[in-house]
């Protein structure tokens, strides 16, 4: 019973908290306290689930006591458990940062309930075994994300939300069709059983159609080229805390679903992959995403737009790992995904503090962070250097592993694209750093809130920890690749 509760808690807790926060909506201070307490509890429970799963994973549970294969089941498998823990860390950082960033007006508009619902939906997607349930969690996350995106009700946010909603609804329909056809082909929605049923079928038109629908749907959600346009057109209008959570979790959730579907269901990276006609698409999408989005970031001067392009460019690296179709390649994707969630969220939090200190989102009008806020500069240097891939931080190891595995798999052109994109990322991050930190300051110095710095410190410390002990995360990534079904 305790084990079952532990498994359900990462989804159940945020929704209970959301209900409570919704009731307390007219009292912003109480809502803030309720959501902060929920997030702290959630982070603790996620960490316990992670530690328990390291030695002995709790058994999967099937809701409603249905026989296996009929009910919706949740299970604590890798990499879901690790991603749930990272989600807890991101949620905690966002809650700390939100203490100052999210005022009573936004809380009155339902910020706390929406944010908790978003986190609950993301956790649900990470733990579910059921394809249709995965689709439902995506939809729930979309509704919460649209609410968060338009929380200030500004015209720019409404416009951004229309763009976001249009792309996401199209993706949802493609996923729904793919899921329905998978059921039609295999007679089950359980991912493991459906994967086993598909393995026995001869390659055919129907399997290829299902794979194409699911690939397009989840690529849209993950923001991969050529479906990347919605992301830089919408993320820059959201409040800092919100966009940090989006950048950390949402695209990675889409990529996680790609891993689940293509490694688990279609056996990419295994001995007998299905739907091999689509294999070249993976590599091309990865290379195009890395190059186009890293170049796109170079053209931007608005911090949020610049970082939005980097969010997708990083998904390109993860896709490169999947495109290798080897067990190590899948492990490299998982490693990259966990590193990237933490770094992207931290970068947006840092950009928010630069905005707070200098009063502008435009890099050309910022400056002086190094002299005026040395503690901030120290904390911010970690994600900046990590994204650029400077040793010994997590980004260096993540890029190194992807490069090594692409060379091992004989895809030299993909490694070349990754290197070129990495070079552009270094240039972009160098410009970002020198503009915001080294350049002369304008205007008066404004103080930075302690809680926001603490939020950045939490994420920076995690990045440094991965950088110092990459072997631990690599072990988890290898476990994940095995659990997903590669090798």
């Amino acid at each position: 019973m305790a084990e079952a509760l532990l498994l359900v808690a990462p989804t159940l807790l945020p929704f209970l908290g959301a209900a409570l926060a919704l009731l307390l909506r007219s009292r912003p201070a109480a809502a803030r306290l309720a959501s902060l307490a929920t997030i702290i509890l959630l982070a603790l429970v996620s960490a316990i689930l992670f530690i328990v799963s390291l030695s002995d994973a709790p058994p999967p549970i099937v809701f409603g006591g249905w026989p296996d294969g009929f009910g919706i089941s949740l299970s604590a498998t890798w990499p879901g458990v690790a991603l749930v823990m990272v989600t807890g860390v991101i949620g905690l950082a966002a809650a700390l940062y939100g203490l100052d960033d999210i005022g009573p007006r936004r809380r009155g508009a339902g910020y706390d309930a929406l944010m908790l619902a978003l986190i609950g939906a993301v956790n649900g997607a990470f733990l579910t075994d059921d394809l249709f349930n995965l689709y439902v969690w995506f939809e729930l996350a979309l509704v919460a994300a649209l609410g968060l995106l338009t929380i200030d009700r500004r015209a720019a946010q409404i416009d951004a939300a229309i763009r976001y909603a249009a792309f996401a609804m199209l993706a949802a329909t493609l996923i729904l069709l793919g899921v329905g056809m998978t059921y039609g082909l295999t007679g089950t929605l359980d991912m493991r059983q459906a994967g086993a049923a598909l393995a026995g079928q001869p390659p055919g038109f129907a399997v290829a159609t299902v794979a194409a629908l699911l690939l397009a749907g989840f690529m849209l959600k993950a923001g991969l080229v050529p479906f990347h346009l919605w992301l830089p057109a919408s993320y820059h209008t959201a409040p800092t805390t919100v966009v940090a959570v989006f950048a950390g979790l949402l695209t990675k959730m889409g990529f996680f679903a790609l891993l689940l579907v293509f490694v688990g269901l279609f056996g990419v990276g295994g001995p007998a992959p299905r739907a091999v006609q689509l294999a070249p698409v993976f590599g091309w999408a990865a290379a195009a995403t890395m190059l186009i989005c890293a170049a796109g970031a170079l053209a931007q001067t608005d911090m949020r737009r610049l970082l939005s392009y980097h969010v997708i460019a990083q998904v390109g690296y993860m896709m490169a790992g999947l495109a290798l179709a080897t067990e190590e390649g899948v492990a490299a994707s998982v490693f990259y995904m966990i590193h990237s969630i933490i770094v992207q969220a931290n970068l947006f939090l840092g950009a928010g503090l630069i905005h707070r200190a200098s009063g502008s989102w435009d890099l050309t009008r910022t400056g002086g962070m190094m002299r005026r806020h040395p503690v901030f500069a120290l904390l911010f240097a970690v994600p900046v250097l990590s994204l650029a891939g400077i040793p010994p931080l997590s980004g260096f190891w993540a890029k190194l592993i992807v490069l090594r595995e692409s060379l091992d798999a004989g895809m030299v052109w993909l490694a070349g694209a990754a290197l070129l994109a990495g070079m552009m990322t270094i240039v972009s991050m160098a410009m970002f750093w020198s503009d915001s930190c080294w350049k002369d300051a304008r205007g008066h110095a404004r103080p930075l809130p302690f809680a926001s710095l603490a939020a950045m410190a939490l994420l920076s410390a995690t990045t440094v920890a991965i950088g110092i002990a990459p072997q631990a995360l690599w072990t988890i990534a290898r476990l994940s690749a095995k659990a997903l079904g590669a090798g």
Partner: protein
Amino acid sequence: MTVFYAFIGSAVVGCALFMILSRNLVRMLLGFSLLATGANLLLFVAGRIRSQQPPIIEPAAEVLGASADPVIQALILTAIVIGLALTVMLGVLVLRAWRAQATIDARKVDAAEAVGRARPQDPANG
């Protein structure tokens, strides 16, 4: 029969995709509503159309007779609800855009594009 349903489903989805490409936001909204309907119709086909017999196991029997798959119909019911929620959400957004800017032309609803447009680097500051 199945082929007929599949053609109807794909025709509905095709019309919906055409409408989504429209610059008129209300037409896009209706397109998404139609797209959900088309997808549900195609899901219905995936559940096999066999007979009008309800999916109830006969008292003496162990397995379901010649009736359609009930699981896929449960999926369609869920999908209808989700589709409704998303359509309403998009409808609210289009309505707010209309109230804010008095236009439903997608080219003129561009407030987000104006935020944070790239600016040339200031030479005085390096």
